[in-house]
Every structure is written in C-alpha cells, then in structure tokens.
C-alpha cells in the first residue's frame, strides 16, 4: 500500500505534521510508519474546523474488518460511521484523489463538530485519538491468525474436488495455486493434477495449451492422465468429423495430429468413444498390423454398436490412399499362429509390446524361459496396462522364477517397476469407491479415505442406484464424514447429481456438508451447485424444506465478513423457484440468513442489499431495518452497471435461478436495460438469434455445456462474450461491474 503522505498533508488538509506538538507528531510518525509496513493505520485531516480520520488497510478484507471494529470502537457517539459506513465523499476533491487507491481508505468525521458554545468537541477529538492509538496497537500487535497456516494437502485436495464438481474455475485454480505453494508434491504430480483439473472443467484448450504437456507426453504417466489428453485431442481434432460421420475429414485430421501425440496409444482396454477413436486413428496412421486394428475394432463394438463400421471405413479409405495394403482380415488370427519363422518368441513379445498389444505380450512372455529381458517385458507391460489380473500374473512369474535378484542388479528403472508391481498387487481388498464408502462408515480405513486423486481417478464411479441406496441408508455420522472428505467423491459422481436431477441425492449431500460443520471455499461452491441441481429437479415439498434447513446450517458455518455475498447468493438461488413461493420453509430461510449475515452487515455491498430487498418484496417479508440503515445515502449501487444502459444484454446459464436473479437486480439498477436470460440448448434458433443480436452476452461457463459455449462464441463472431467461471448471480454481476 503506497500512500503519498506529502500529498495527504497538503492541499485540503490544515494539519502540517511538522507544526503540531511533539506528542501528536510522534503519534503521526507511528501511524505513517505502520501504513508503510502494510499495517492498519490512521491519518487525520482537518479542514474548515471539521476533523476527519482516514483509515488505511492493506487488503480489502482488512478494510472490511477495520470498518466493523471501528463501528464498535468509535461508534455513533463520536463519529458518522453508522450513516456513512466509512465511505469517501466523491464530491470532495481531497477524497477523489484517495478514491483512486486499490484499497480505498475508510473515512469518518469526529462528532460533535466544533462549536463556540461547547467544549465537548475537544473531548471527542481526544477520545477518538486515544481510541485509535489503542486500536492500532491491538490490531497490529495481535498474533498471526491460525488460519494463515497452510492447510494440509488432503484439505486442499478435498476443496479442489468440490470445485471441480461444481465447475468453479476460480476456486479450483486457487486450490491448485495453494498446492503449488504449500504442498509437498513434485512438479510432475502438479502437472498431472493441473491436467485433471482442466479435464474436470472440460477445458480441452487449456489441456492442450498446458506448459508441461510436451514433457507429460514424454514421460510415463498415470492412465487417467493419458485419457485426459486423449479426450482433449479428440475434442480438438476429431470430434466434429466423428460426430458428423465424415470419415475422409477424420483421416485428414489424424494426419494433422502433431507427432508429440502419437504416444497416446495406451494399450489398455478402451472405455469411451473418444479413447477408442483416438487410439484407432493413431494406430491407422502408424500403419499397425491387422491384429491390433481388429482387436481395437472389437473393443469399439462394446462401446457403441455402430462405431466399428465407422472406423473400418476410415481404415479402408486409408488403404485406398496407400494401395499396397489389403483390407483388414475379418476374423483375427490367434497370436500364436502369426509367428514368422525368423523371429524368436522374445522378439515377437517385444514387437507386441511396441505395438501396444500389452496383454498379448504378457501372455506370450509367461510361456517363455525366465530371463532379464522377459522380466523387463513383463514389468513394462504390467505397469502400462495397470490391470490387477495381469499384474498378479507378472508378479507370480517373477517370484516363481526367482528373478528379483536379477532385477535388483539390473537398473533403477526395473527396480522401480518391480516395487510398483509389488505395491499394486498387495494383498487386501481392491480399493474402489465402494470400499471408500465402507471406510467412511466405520472407524477403520483412514488410509483409504486419504487416497489422492492419482488413485481415485482410476476408480469406476458408482451407479446412480447404488449411490441412492448408500445415501439413503447412511447414518448422520457417516454423512458428516462424507461432507468433510467428499470432494474427490463428488468430482467423480458429479454427473449423477447433475444429469439425473435426483433431488433426494442432493438433499442428502447437503445434509452431509451441514453435519460436517465444515467451512471452506469448496463447501461453499458445492452448496451452490447442489442447490441448483435440487431446485431444477422439482423437489417434493418435504425434500425442499429439509434441504433449506441443511442449507441454513451450512450458511451459519460458512458466513464471515468475506462470504456474505455468497450467503446472499444462496438465498437468491433458494428463493428463485416456484417451489419456494409456496413453501413456508422459504421465508424461514430468509429470516435465518438475514439474521446470520447481520453481524457482518458492513460487508454487504449495495447489490447484496438490493437483492435482499427484492427477495423480501417477493416473499412479503420485511427487511431488517438495521441492514438498510447501513446503506450509504449518496452511494449509487447502479453506477458500475451504468454503461449497460440502452444495451441488449443476454445472460446464459443452465442455473436459471442465478440468471433470473441477476436480471431482476440489473433491471432495478439500470432502468433502461434490455435484458434476457437463456438456458437454451446449443443449436437452437433462439439461442442463435440471442447470440447474434445481443450487445453484451454473458455465459456462465461453470453452468453451461461446452458445446453451447462454443456455439455462442461462433455466433458472436468477433464480438466478445463475457465468461463467468462461478455459479451464482453475484459472480455474473461482479463480472459485469468490472466491464
């Protein structure tokens, strides 16, 4: 924080520090030194017989905190704080200069003003000066907050999971930065985590633009990371042609695939269309033999019935272009019949591994005489394949033939691979989401619960019915534990909550978050997302009322001077549906939340107050008077949005409650605005028209399908699209206020 003290004690201020008494001079020196050291400090200004103090804080958070403390410390007896809330006077040239600071100073006038017939003003000035001295000593001398201590890696990863599940980019990136700064993770693991995060946000461009991608492609990486890159490559190069069934273009696209992406062939059984298409096309381009291609086609058939024929056409086209090849032989010949006489079995196995036929390579090696080469093939294939069955076979072969000694004396890489194999095949139940939930249920399995995303990413998500059954039977204690540790779980099962629209499921998770009593950014964004899923699923009145009760508990645990806007967002979302209008639970929630934010009323911004007034009028409730009394009289809440006057604005989000609320508030604040909301699917003519005609188009990427965002961007052409990375109406309004 840089304050120009010369300017402050210049024009508009009658106080000259060198001309005041030595005691006051010392006080001013101390205040100025504190401000320079980024501490909280106060400076006086006297003009035309009136005295103001200006409070300087280094961060907006400390500024809000200082205002709340000043409110109690100086109070209405000696200041205008209750009315002016520390706001600067924009019409005063002295204040106008100060208003340019990144953190605006707080201003209050010492009351009563100077009068000829009373000496009380002298007493007030001395009391305020003494109070400020003590206040700064206490504030700047207090021990550092325990909340400044770095959080554990598990806590941050949990928040990261919640942020990915709620598609909140801002919170997710903040978690990643926190991990980079404080967690004991090496750079390769951080790079893997970053790629997983971008995949969770479906930001394929960011995956491909990652600074470490080239290196990640060159290194041995977890299967889940390979799948993320495959998905990104598919979305970027192949998806449009694949969806349109355009095989010729698809073949052209694979030729354009950069060479660095050729190692994307994983050799593992394929689980998605993207994976099947990418791996098949890479193998076609690599001119791989018919056995591998036939196996890939068979696997593609298990993913989607029509996919093999589509891919086979691509292969025919490729072979037409290079006619020395024949069409793929229909039934693939068994591996052992493809032996060419000049090749030894070990060479054949090496060839199979090089072509990505990992299972076939392992199968062949298991029949051979033990040797270091055989061990190398087994270890490499088993590690890349990550299949428990194949890993167990490989380890059994190595143990039976006593190859450990040979491996120990060979190379660090083989030793490392053997250590991995032993760990991977360790006796005990295979870990998956079911065992993770079992661990939540009992006192055992704390190691399972602390499993990081590197492991959990490989687990198959539970089915909707299994999840419903578990949540239905879970005790309050278990649900509380899920609320405390469930970030990665929610990230893995997001689709069930988002797509199925099962209100009861969201209500149970909200209960878990409430029972955990947890206070974190991840919990806050997750609450917003769950409320959104719940409300869009037309919940029964009992489920709705129960969800609001849990929400109120979450709000109580999470509210603070810096989260009041989030609390108001929750209130806006919960009251924006037709279910809310008829439920008595809604009005209860309104009073509970306004009561909860009351201690932090000075942190409420003018837009929050507008929102409270709007909801109160809808519900026929009264706004607590003290909240409105805090509204600065001459402050204009609509000023940041004035530039939108006479413009056509479209707000796009699948979270309709957020866009509805944001639109309502903007209509109040900017009278001549033409505003529409949209939750249309991509490709609809209405969305196309809105995208083409709007002056300002806002897309909430945290609650929009990727295809819709691309569709809107394409229709907008060169005109900008305002992207909002968080849910909630405040995020939309904040982005618009920043222009």
């Amino acid at each position, binding site marked *: 924080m840089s304050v120009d003290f010369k300017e402050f004690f210049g024009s508009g201020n009658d106080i000259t520090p060198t001309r005041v008494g030595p005691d006051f001079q010392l006080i001013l020196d101390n205040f100025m030194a504190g401000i320079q050291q980024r501490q909280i400090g106060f400076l006086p200004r006297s003009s035309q017989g009136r005295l103001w103090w200006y409070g300087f804080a280094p961060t907006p958070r400390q500024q809000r905190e200082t205002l709340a403390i000043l409110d109690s410390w100086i109070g209405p007896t000696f200041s205008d704080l209750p009315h002016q809330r520390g706001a600067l006077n924009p019409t005063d040239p002295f204040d106008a200069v100060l208003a340019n600071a990144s953190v605006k100073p707080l201003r209050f006038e010492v009351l009563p003003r100077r009068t000829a017939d009373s000496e009380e003003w002298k007493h007030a000035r001395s009391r305020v000066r003494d109070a400020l001295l003590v206040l700064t000593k206490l504030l700047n001398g207090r021990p550092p907050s325990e909340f400044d201590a770095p959080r554990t890696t598990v806590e941050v990863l949990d928040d990261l999971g919640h942020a990915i599940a709620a598609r909140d980019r801002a919170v997710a990136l903040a978690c990643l930065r926190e991990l980079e700064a404080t967690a004991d993770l090496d*750079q*390769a693991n951080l*790079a893997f985590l970053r790629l997983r995060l971008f995949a969770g946000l479906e930001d394929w461009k960011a995956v491909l633009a990652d600074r*470490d991608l080239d290196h*990640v492609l*060159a*290194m041995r990486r977890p299967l889940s990371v390979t799948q993320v890159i495959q998905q990104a490559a598919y979305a970027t190069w192949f998806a449009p042609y694949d969806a349109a069934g355009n095989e010729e273009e698809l073949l052209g696209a694979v030729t354009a695939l950069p060479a660095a992406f050729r190692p994307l062939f994983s050799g593992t059984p394929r689980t998605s269309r993207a994976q099947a298409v990418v791996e098949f096309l890479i193998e076609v381009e690599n001119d791989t033999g018919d056995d591998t291609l036939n196996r890939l086609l068979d696997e593609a058939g298990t993913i989607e019935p029509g996919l093999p024929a589509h891919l086979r056409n691509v292969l025919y086209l490729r072979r037409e272009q290079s006619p020395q090849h024949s069409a793929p032989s229909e039934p693939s010949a068994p591996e052992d019949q493809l032996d060419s006489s000049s090749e030894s079995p070990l060479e054949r196995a090496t060839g199979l591994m090089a072509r990505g036929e990992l299972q076939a390579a392992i199968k062949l090696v298991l029949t051979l005489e033990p040797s270091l080469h055989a061990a190398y093939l087994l270890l490499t294939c088993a590690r890349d394949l990550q299949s428990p069955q194949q890993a167990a076979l490989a380890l059994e072969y190595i143990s039976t033939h006593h190859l450990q000694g040979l491996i120990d004396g060979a190379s660090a890489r083989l030793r490392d691979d053997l250590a991995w194999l032993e760990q991977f095949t360790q006796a005990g139940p295979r870990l998956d989401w079911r065992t993770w939930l079992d661990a939540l249920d009992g006192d055992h399995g704390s190691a399972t619960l602390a499993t990081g995303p590197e492991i959990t990413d490989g687990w198959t998500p539970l089915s909707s019915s299994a999840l419903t059954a578990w949540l239905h039977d879970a005790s309050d204690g278990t649900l509380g534990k899920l609320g405390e540790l469930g970030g990665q779980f929610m990230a893995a099962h997001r689709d069930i909550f988002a797509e199925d629209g099962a209100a009861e499921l969201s209500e149970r998770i909200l209960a878990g978050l409430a029972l955990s009593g947890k206070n974190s950014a991840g919990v806050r964004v997750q609450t917003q997302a769950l409320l959104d899923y719940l409300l869009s699923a037309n919940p029964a009145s009992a489920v709705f009322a129960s969800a609001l009760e849990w929400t109120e508990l979450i709000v109580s645990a999470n509210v603070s001077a810096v989260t009041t806007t989030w609390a108001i967002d929750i209130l806006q979302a919960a009251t924006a549906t037709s279910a809310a209008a008829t439920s008595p639970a809604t009005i209860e929630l309104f009073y509970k939340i306004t009561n909860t934010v009351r201690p932090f009323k000075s942190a409420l911004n003018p837009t929050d107050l507008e929102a409270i007034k709007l909801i109160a009028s809808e519900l026929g409730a009264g706004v607590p008077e003290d909240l409105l009394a805090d509204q600065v009289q001459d402050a204009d809440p609509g000023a940041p949005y004035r530039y939108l006057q006479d413009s056509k604005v479209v707000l796009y989000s699948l979270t309709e409650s957020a866009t509805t609320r944001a639109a309502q508030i903007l209509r109040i604040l900017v009278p001549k605005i033409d505003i529409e909301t949209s939750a249309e699917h991509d490709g609809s003519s209405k969305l196309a028209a809105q995208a083409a005609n709007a002056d300002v188009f806002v897309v909430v990427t945290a609650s929009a399908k990727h295809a819709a965002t691309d569709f809107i961007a394409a229709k907008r052409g060169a005109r900008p699209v305002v992207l909002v990375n968080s849910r909630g109406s405040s995020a939309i309004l904040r982005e618009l206020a920043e222009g």
Partner: protein
Amino acid sequence: MRRITTVGAGETRQLTDLLQNLLVSELLAPSSRLWVLSPWISDIVVIDNASGQFKSVLPALPARPIRLTEVLIDLARRGSDVRVIMRDESRNAVTGQRLTDLAPVGPRPSLLIRNTLHDKGMVSDRFHVHGSMNFTFFGQRVNQEGVTVVSDPDQIARAWVEYQNRYQLP
C-alpha cells in the same frame, strides 16, 4: 542411468569422456533445448580435439581443446535454446561475459542469475546429468563428486517439468 563418482585425484577419465560424448552428440544433432545449472561455473575444457579426433564427424571443430562456452554458443547458433543458470559471483563473471560478449551477433545462450541456486546439472532432450559437480575446474578435477547420467525419456521429461517451473525465465 549411470552413476559416476570421482575421488578427487586429478581428472577423471570417466567423467571427462562422458561430458565430451554428450556434448559432441549435441553438436551433431542439437536438442531443441539445453540448460546448464551450475552455481559456480568456469570455462572448462569439455571436448579434447587437440589431435583433431572429431574431424570426421565435426569437420568445423578446430583442432584444439574446446571450451564449454564455445560449445554452448555453437549450440545456440545451431538453433538450440541454451540457458545457463548460475549465481551472481565474481568467479562466474568471465564465463558469463564470454557467453554473451563472444556471441555479439545472432542467437546466444541466455543467462539467468539465481543467487540461491545450489542445484547442478545439464539437461537436454536426450540426457540429464545431475549431481554434486559444478562445471568448474575444481568440480571436474579436484573435488570428490557424484554425478548421475539419465537417458530415460520419462526421467528427462520429469526433470524438464521441475526445471521449467523452478527456473523459467520471466
């Protein structure tokens, strides 16, 4: 991966040969990037071409001992992104100056000063040499050092990720 330890009794043939082989291979086919991390660095001889033994593969190489800065400047001119990361020490000044002053025209190695640097290594697209040795006379010939050479693509890629994140030029 290969581990070489030196006992400090004069120049170690293994280490000298290793550096020479790696850098000659770089001159033959320059990597896209080559970074040298050495808190203390001096212009040591890295290729012994006194009798012109590399004439057949590198005809342009002068028949004399070739110094580290010469190789790095040449690699930069051949299109490699050469970066030298070192401390701001008076002992490093001569090498730093040679890397920049002797290459007044055309591409030249970038210098990055990190006064807390204690990591030592050299990494290209095809190898990663790391250990306790500074690229100095004492490191090469006097001190007892342990140096590891890695050619595994996985480990080289991990080293790049680590170095790029730690020492990326602003």
